[in-house]
């Protein structure tokens, strides 16, 4: 039917079906700012303003637009201009991956159209409609307040909050020109304007839609599969099953070559191992046709017994999940063990015997999902040379290219992987999930194919955080000195072992590396079950290990009647000390590690001040006479997290000068929204003493950018940053060399400053003159360099997390009132983006602590695979959050930087758990800390 409406001030007439969503119709009209994310009205990323009201366009039938006025962010500003709200979002660092940003901006507009004087609560309510997994909402809230001031016509001072949050040694304040400065994120304006920067934002002629048929059973064999009816459907172009796809064993994790074992996957198998597992893939003219085709595929199932419990699965007689003969590197298939880790030093038994106190506890952590707001999406096509182009939302473009090559039988040289902007990854996109099938569909049909995960697919067929059972045993002396620690865990790796070993290794490392002890032992069974597959998730095993160790250390301190901070500081590893257990826990060959920069004491001091820790000593803090059912408490945790993976991670950079003295910086590193492109540009700008906007960053395209392992393991600043620094230094040498010839002065007297090279006599040449001279005039040469970096170290970052909570002792309801995190990430390159990382990470970690969990029925079906049921935290329920950065340089990092991205996910859960114990006198040994668990624990105590 024909519909008529006004879109961004222009009258539109278009055709739409009753079943078309307004979201899809508006995207066909070129409004790519409206994002496809959940299609259930729950994330707000597809929001529009219809007659001034914020509405989710994904649940509106398109004909509902008839006669209405619709505004999207494309209609807010023109050309390079930014609307005051967009400007405020850019300045406050509210744009990380940017996927939610257009929705946030429209939510802000709806509010600010009503009032120019919004309260913080009103702003929270307005942004409460838009889910964001990156920011933790504080920077967007500040953007709303700042935009209100702009719209009131006020003169708005530069954005300062992060400067207050960075406690810098005054002598360091002016050391650098670009390092340590809150430069606006380079890509923020285009995302605030809703430009088509993501994978899905292109339309290619003849593009087909790809879709996955997934398993309805947790464990079943496919006796036969009949695709004839589906294939006969007009508009269906290809159906892939195990019958027509090469059987090639692999591991889907985007990890360094050779991928860690086990290799237990094939593209399409005749066995399924979890609800949501791959059965078939279809390419058709439309999404509806794909669904129709899938409904016509007939599968002859042999349903097998399934196992979901991580202890049951190891028992004799449990269903064997990987009975295929070609699985490689499975530790004990008969007992569903994908991998077993053992590491120890010292005489554990003797040390426990000699301990004055031994405490042993078992902790459980749950499976949670990364929930990037942009689900996995891939578009593949053949270029004019018939090379395969894979445009994908990935954290690991180079690993994607290497991993899919043997699966699709195309040599690496004939595959080009392009990573445009990514709408969040958080580890879920450190994986090859759709690229192989999408590529095969393109190869078979010769046509471009768009293949994406629905939100439900994203929950059950994507990746998640491993659930663990962790037994900790700690032996201590009366003095508070730790003698022995034992950590024994089972990690549930779901149906496939990908990332299982490495994540578990990190859980062990994080559980055992913060404290010294005379002896330690780590044992882990990484077990298969018939559940959806975990993988990489920001923190990568750290949150599980740190939750368990920080809870038990708190309890040990309590039993010793020692102050929990003093107890921890008595035992924490110190600068110069080696972390012994890391000698035994390594992906490949062990790389001994020791602590260089520390800063934990300062972090604790500042954190204590910010949360007013000493209140905890007073009884009246815990009890409020006006609310007799409420108890208050405070808890804390210390954290240590590495910077990259020692001896493995490698990053590279390439730079060249342009005629105007600007530089192209080409990186394999992948900016997930963290702002890494900007900070890498800051590093280059600092070396070359040119403005950051003279660095044009491009990342990543396997044809044009140098290799990088990708964005994971908190490695981008530390590893790729150093590659950029080295590269820029090489370029600088060439610049000075050229200037020396131009100025006729020896190199060693020249100074590079403010886009010029100065000689001692006051003469100078500009960067532009140097560029023109080198490219066009004398001894022509492209000033360019490439450099790569890997590190034998992964210097630990130290931090502390404090939490203040209220618990209703009649209902068990927990309210987290305040979080304070203080961290020493080494030199901070960009305070605004750094604070964004801290707040966003803590918000994710808070969800992990108090509400998020993937829940299943007895048959392995996920019960809550939609945002409304799974519930990630919204803007209107965030606690007060204070983030403090205490930068202390790390000798091995670029300009002293270490890492920052993952450590904020580590400490919230134990700090909250310890605060609940402080409030109620009851400890909860599993996550998330749900009201029901607290209530039950309190009932038991009674």
């Amino acid at each position, binding site marked *: 039917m024909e519909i008529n409406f006004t879109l961004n001030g222009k009258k539109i007439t278009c055709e739409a079906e009753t079943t078309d969503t307004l979201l899809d119709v508006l995207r066909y009209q070129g409004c790519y700012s409206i994002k496809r994310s959940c299609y259930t009205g729950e994330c707000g990323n597809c929001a529009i303003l219809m007659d001034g009201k914020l509405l989710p366009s994904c649940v509106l039938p398109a004909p509902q637009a008839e006669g209405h006025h619709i505004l999207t962010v494309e209609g807010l500003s023109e050309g390079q201009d930014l609307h005051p709200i967009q400007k405020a979002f850019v300045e406050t660092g509210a744009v990380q991956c940017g996927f939610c940003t257009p929705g946030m901006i429209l939510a802000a507009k709806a509010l600010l159209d009503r009032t120019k004087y919004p309260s913080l609560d009103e702003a929270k309510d307005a942004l409460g409609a838009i889910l964001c997994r990156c920011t933790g909402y504080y920077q967007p809230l500040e953007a709303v307040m700042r935009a209100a001031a702009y719209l009131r016509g006020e003169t708005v001072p530069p954005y300062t909050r992060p400067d207050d949050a960075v406690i810098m040694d005054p002598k360091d304040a002016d050391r650098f020109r670009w390092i340590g400065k809150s430069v606006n994120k380079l890509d923020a304006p285009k995302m605030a304007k809703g430009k088509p920067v993501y994978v899905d934002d292109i339309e290619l002629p003849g593009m087909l839609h790809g879709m996955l048929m997934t398993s309805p059973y947790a464990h079943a064999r496919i006796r036969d599969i009949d695709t004839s009816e589906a294939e006969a459907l007009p508009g269906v172009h290809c159906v892939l099953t195990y019958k027509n796809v090469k059987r090639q064993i692999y591991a889907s994790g985007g990890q360094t070559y050779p991928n860690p074992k086990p290799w237990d996957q094939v593209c399409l198998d005749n066995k399924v191992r979890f609800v949501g597992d791959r059965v078939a893939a279809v390419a058709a003219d439309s999404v509806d046709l794909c669904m129709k085709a899938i409904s016509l595929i007939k599968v002859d199932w042999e349903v097998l017994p399934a196992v979901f419990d991580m202890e049951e699965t190891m028992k004799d007689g449990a269903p064997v999940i990987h009975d295929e003969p070609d699985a490689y590197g499975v530790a004990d298939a008969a007992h569903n063990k994908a991998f077993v880790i053992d590491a120890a030093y010292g005489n554990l038994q003797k040390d426990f015997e000699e301990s004055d106190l031994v405490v042993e506890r078992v902790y459980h952590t749950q499976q949670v999902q990364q929930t990037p707001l942009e689900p996995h999406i891939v578009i593949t096509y053949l270029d004019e040379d018939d090379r395969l182009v894979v445009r994908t939302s990935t954290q690991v473009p180079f690993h994607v290219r290497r991993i899919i090559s043997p699966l699709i039988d195309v040599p690496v040289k004939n595959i080009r992987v392009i990573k445009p902007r990514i709408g969040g990854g958080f580890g879920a996109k450190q994986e090859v999930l759709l690229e192989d099938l999408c590529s095969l569909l393109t190869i078979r049909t010769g046509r471009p194919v768009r293949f994406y995960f629905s939100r439900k697919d994203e929950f059950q067929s994507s990746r998640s955080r491993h659930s663990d059972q962790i037994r900790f045993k700690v032996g201590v002396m009366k003095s508070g000195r730790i003698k022995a620690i034992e950590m024994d865990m089972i990690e549930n790796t779901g149906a496939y072992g990908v990332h299982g070993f490495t994540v578990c290794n990190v859980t062990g490392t994080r559980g055992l590396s913060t404290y010294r002890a005379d002896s330690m032992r780590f044992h882990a069974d990484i077990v298969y079950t018939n559940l959806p597959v975990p993988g990489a998730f920001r923190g990568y095993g750290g949150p599980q290990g740190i939750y368990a160790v920080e809870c038990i250390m708190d309890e040990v301190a309590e039993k010793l009647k020692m102050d929990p901070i003093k107890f921890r500081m008595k035992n924490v590893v110190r600068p110069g000390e080696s972390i012994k257990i890391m000698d035994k826990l390594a992906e490949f060959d062990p790389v001994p590690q020791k602590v260089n920069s520390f800063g934990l004491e300062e972090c604790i001091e500042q954190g204590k001040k910010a949360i007013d820790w000493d209140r905890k000593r007073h009884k009246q803090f815990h009890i409020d006479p006006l609310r007799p059912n409420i108890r208050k408490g405070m808890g804390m945790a210390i954290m240590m997290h590495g910077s990259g993976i020692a001896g493995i991670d490698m990053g590279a950079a390439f730079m060249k000068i342009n005629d105007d003295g600007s530089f192209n910086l080409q990186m394999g590193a992948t900016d997930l929204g963290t702002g890494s492109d900007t900070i890498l540009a800051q590093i280059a700008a600092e070396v070359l003493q040119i403005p950051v906007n003279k660095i044009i960053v491009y990342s990543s395209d396997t044809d044009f950018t140098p290799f990088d392992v990708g964005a994971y393991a908190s490695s981008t600043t530390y590893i790729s940053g150093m590659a950029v620094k080295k590269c820029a230094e090489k370029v600088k040498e060439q610049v000075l060399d050229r200037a020396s010839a131009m100025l006729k002065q020896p190199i060693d007297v020249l100074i590079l400053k403010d886009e010029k090279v100065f000689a001692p006599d006051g003469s100078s040449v500009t960067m532009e003159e140097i560029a023109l001279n080198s490219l066009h005039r004398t001894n022509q040469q492209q000033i360019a360099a490439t450099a790569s970096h890997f590190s034998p170290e992964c210097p630990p970052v130290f931090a502390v997390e404090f939490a203040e909570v209220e618990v209703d002792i009649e209902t068990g309801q927990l309210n987290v009132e305040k979080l304070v995190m203080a961290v020493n990430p080494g030199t901070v390159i960009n305070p605004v983006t750094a604070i964004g990382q801290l707040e966003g990470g803590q918000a994710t970690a808070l969800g992990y602590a108090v509400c998020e969990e993937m829940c299943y029925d007895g048959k392995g079906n996920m019960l809550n695979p939609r945002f409304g049921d799974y519930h990630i935290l919204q803007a209107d329920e965030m606690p007060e959050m204070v983030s403090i950065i205490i930068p202390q340089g790390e000798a091995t990092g670029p300009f002293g930087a270490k890492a920052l991205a993952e450590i904020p996910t580590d400490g919230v859960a134990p700090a909250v758990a310890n605060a609940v114990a402080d409030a109620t006198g009851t400890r909860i040994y599993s996550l*998330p800390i749900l009201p029901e668990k607290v209530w039950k624990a309190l009932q038991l105590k009674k």
Partner: protein
Amino acid sequence: MTVFYRPDTIKKTLKILGNPDQNCVPLYYPPRAKHISQWDGDALMDLSALNFDAIKIRKTEILFGSLVSLETIAKSDDIRSLWNGVLSEAAKISTTNAMRNLSTIGGVLMNPLFPAEVVLVLLVLDAKVVLLQNNGKEIRVPVEEFLQDGYPVLQKGCLIKEVSIPLNSRTRCVFDRVACTKSNASIVSLVIRGDLTQKKAYHLRVAVFGANSFPKRYHQVESALENDLITVQGIQQCCKKISEETAPVSDFRAGAEYRTAMAEVLIRRSLLALRKMAVG
């Protein structure tokens, strides 16, 4: 589903709805959004031209047009000033503001199982659904009757025009709930109403969500308040009846035991809060 109607008169609307050969679904958006494929029917109908989006305040009742949005209810100063603000609070807690802009009181009635907070308020306030029958006549059906075991009973060809809530200046309400986080869906929620005079609470109404398979009035609890006297003993009598009313179902949000316990905690607390309002 290929047809989309946008009738501009009630007559045309009823004619389309009464067509025996077609199942046309009026677009009453619920707070828990439906994917477009989840609207069962072979035609959709946009009712926005019928002016069902007004709130009419009369001497003895308030009439909410069936298309009054939950956001309007949440934000209206008039509504916030009534019934201790519980209707506005219930609307606000139901969903995000974008979905509140879209979802309507009609949508709540047609999808009452979850979230159910607005339904609880309608139940305790003795609200009536004003239905337009296919012959154009209006009838009023108490919400509790309209929702049978939690499911709406709307005969083919009929339309929800309005919801009527009687006004009584003595009516006081309490809303309470348990949830994992502030904006998370309720595990158990409840609304209590009483028309207060000194130590009495007339027309005591208790409605609970989360301790039964659908939002439910607890009649036995209500009638246990002897002589309407809202004393501590009276409240204890009410609480003794709670276990006779609850029949919770465990789900991923919480188990049955916890739900039962929470129904008790919330009812007791809310009755005490109501008593406080009565006796000061």
